[in-house]
């Protein structure tokens, strides 16, 4: 039983996968041998058969799934909220009480997944029945909906009333106990499928996204003309061979694997787990000595170096030694123009021209004449991206020339040598635990661990889980 929506090409997508799972539990609960033991419950003067108490439900869940009481209460609560079990006392309060409160299983006929989607017609008949049966039995919100439906499906209203009367007549011929049961079941169904405004709607599928269809892009000639332009440009694009690109991805993930805390853990320990913030302290923007992983990353790509403020400073020091620091200064100034406030663009461009581009400028940057001409004419009407070409030129200059030499320089090598490799902090909570290579059980490591240590690791892992559950109550 699934809730399906017919997507394009007629293929079904499950909307509420949870229903299928809950139904499995419900069926197990009603198993004649292993399920919950039913009994008769008294409701005022009537006896309701096949009922159980909240306590029964919880006990059964605990036993069957070997879970704790908190979790059983949670799961049982979900079964009630989704309408698979309904309370006999206080039917409007869909809550599982772990006491002697009576509950009953909803009949599969009234499972939300069986009758999906809930039909407007059925709802109208239900409200009509309530209205006819006892004047004033409809609640305020039900009255509103009733009158709304009356307007909306007015053409079938005779049918609605007739059906309501028929169903009422048929139910009168049942035993009182059965009649009450049926009424309870039907009420429970509608509490789920047409909930009271303000209460949680478990079937809520999301915000109604009002679309302004009149503004929608019309597939007219203008649209196609634009598309053709886009396609022509896209066609002329340079495409790189797949094999080369894929190699790139493999290299990238491999290179960064040791720098991925989720895959390999992190030293000295992951603050999310150990609550020790040493990792963050060691990796703040400016530290006297950076960590080794951090310095290693500077060699991965030029962008990595520039993105790290410390790396950038080191690189600047190197460039100063080489008397080409103006390149990096120019690049930074251009970044400032690109991402800074619009109102300051004009004055910033002026500054950059004065310092870096004007003939005889104090920190003149070496740009090819074509780019220089283009930039100079662009400066007459300065905008955010006017320096882009020049900036790109200098960027590639540094990347191809200065950057590789920096990586081979003593400055970098010394930095790498004195960089810290943090000591892994022992988990203080369980001092008897076997010392692990990484503080967080490395998911990748789990596979490669030999079977000999598997047993111990498993036991340690179990203890770890319990501790995690305990500290994160």
């Amino acid at each position, binding site marked *: 039983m699934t809730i399906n929506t017919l997507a394009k090409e007629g293929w079904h997508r499950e909307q509420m996968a949870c229903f299928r799972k809950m139904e499995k539990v419900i069926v197990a609960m009603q198993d004649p041998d292993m399920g919950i033991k039913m009994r008769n419950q008294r409701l005022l003067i009537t006896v309701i058969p096949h009922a159980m108490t909240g306590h029964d439900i919880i006990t059964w869940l605990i036993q069957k799934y070997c879970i704790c009481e908190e979790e059983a209460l949670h799961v049982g609560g979900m079964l009630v909220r989704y309408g698979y079990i309904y309370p006999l006392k206080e039917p409007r309060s869909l809550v599982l009480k772990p006491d002697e409160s009576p509950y009953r299983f909803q009949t599969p006929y009234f499972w939300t997944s069986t009758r999906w989607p809930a039909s407007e017609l059925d709802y109208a008949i239900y409200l009509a029945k309530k209205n006819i049966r006892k004047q004033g039995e409809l609640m305020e919100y039900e009255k509103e909906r009733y009158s709304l439906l009356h307007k909306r499906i007015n053409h079938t209203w005779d049918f609605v009333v007739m059906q309501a009367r028929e169903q009422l007549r048929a139910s009168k011929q049942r035993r009182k106990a059965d009649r009450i049961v049926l009424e309870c079941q039907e009420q429970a169904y509608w509490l789920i499928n047409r909930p009271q405004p303000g209460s949680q709607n478990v079937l809520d599928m999301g915000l109604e996204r009002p679309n302004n269809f009149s503004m929608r892009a019309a597939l007219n000639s203008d649209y196609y003309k634009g598309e053709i332009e886009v396609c022509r440009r896209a*066609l002329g694009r340079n495409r790189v061979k797949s094999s080369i*690109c894929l190699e*790139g991805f493999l290299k990238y*993930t491999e290179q960064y694997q040791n720098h991925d805390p989720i895959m390999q853990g992190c030293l000295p320990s992951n603050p*999310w787990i150990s609550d020790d913030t040493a990792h963050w302290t060691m990796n703040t923007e400016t530290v006297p000595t950076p960590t080794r992983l951090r310095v290693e990353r500077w060699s991965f790509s030029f962008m990595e170096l520039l993105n790290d403020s410390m790396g950038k400073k080191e690189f600047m020091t190197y460039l100063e030694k080489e008397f080409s620091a103006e390149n990096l200064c120019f690049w930074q100034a251009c970044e400032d123009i690109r991402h*800074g406030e619009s109102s300051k663009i004009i004055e910033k461009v002026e500054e950059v021209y004065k310092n870096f581009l004007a003939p005889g400028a104090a920190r003149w940057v070496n740009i090819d004449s074509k780019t220089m001409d283009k930039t100079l004419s662009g400066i007459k009407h300065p905008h*955010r991206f006017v320096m882009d070409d020049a900036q790109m030129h200098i960027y590639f200059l540094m990347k191809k020339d200065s950057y590789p030499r920096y990586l081979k320089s003593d400055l970098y090598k010394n930095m790498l040598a004195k960089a810290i490799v943090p000591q892994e902090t022992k988990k203080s909570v369980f001092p008897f635990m076997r010392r692990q290579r990484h503080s967080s059980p490395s998911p990748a490591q789990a596979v490669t661990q030999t079977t000999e240590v598997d047993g111990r690791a498993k036991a340690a892992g179990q203890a770890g889980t319990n501790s995690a559950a305990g500290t994160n109550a």
Partner: protein
Amino acid sequence: MASEKAEIDALKKECDGLRTQIEAARKAVNDGSMTGASGGVASVGRVQLKLRKTLKGHLAKIYAMHWATDSKQMVSASQDGKLLVWDTHTGNKLVAVPLKSAWVMSVAFAPSGNLVASGGLDNICTVYNIKAASPKTLRELDAHTGYLSCCRFLSDSEILTASGDTTCCLWDLETGKQKVVFTNHIGDCMSLALSPDMNTFISGACDSLAKLWDVRDGTCKQTFSGHTSDINAIAFFHSGNAIITGSDDCACKMYDLRSDQEVINYQDTSLNAGVTSLALSSSGRLIFAGYDDFNCHIWDSLKGEKVGVLSGHDNRVSCTGVPEDGLGVCTGSWDSFLKLWN
């Protein structure tokens, strides 16, 4: 009328012809598959992440979350009409921003940490200064004719928005005006992501297409098709050379930007729920995808295998995010809780 229709038909034919040529060009460079290339790579095995923290505080469905660049603070938006800025390490709520409209669908943290932005069914992207004594509305960016599905800051001066009116837009925060409007999608834009170098961005829409745009000139540079339903989530691979998309058709896909085509499809017959959100681990090897089935499933990005699951939410996982330092992953759900895992 007839001549108009004839003209449109001719244009459509030309357009289709070009698209076929593009497909042919893509095929021509396709000399290897990802699954083939990753054959020699070691498997990650079973990835079992533990729940480390549950952040409680929202009173209704959480629709969006975004990490700050310091990897400690995080902002979340909920249908209860509040934005909450969290210190995820202590679990404390640092700032609560009351929203004018409770129907929020997206939230973003500025790289500087000074501003947050949110928007939704009100069609407006509101930017707040959270460093002031009490959160102050800095700007109300009001020009979209459809709901705001996603927003991302480039800096404290610029922000990108994606909207249900099928357009994306670059705004100047100083003037509060639109600078560039990106039009080419024919369905509601559902999400966007900025490239690492901030020169381009990608958008996913209900027309099942993902598009790459140039931030400066507003042109669509590349279009990727393949999904059969709305694309709800999109992200860049950290190298900037690929994009990952998640869709209502229950699949995620990776598209390579340089070879201009799909390289791998992440789909499993047992997974029959739509993808709502996704995030990548720092190395890009793991993809965390939130689904309608209340779980966040973990994929091996290179081998295309499902390697784990984060179970614990009572309702749809609506948002997922990995902070810059990559220490773990955060999932936000309609059950009103945010959970941190690693």
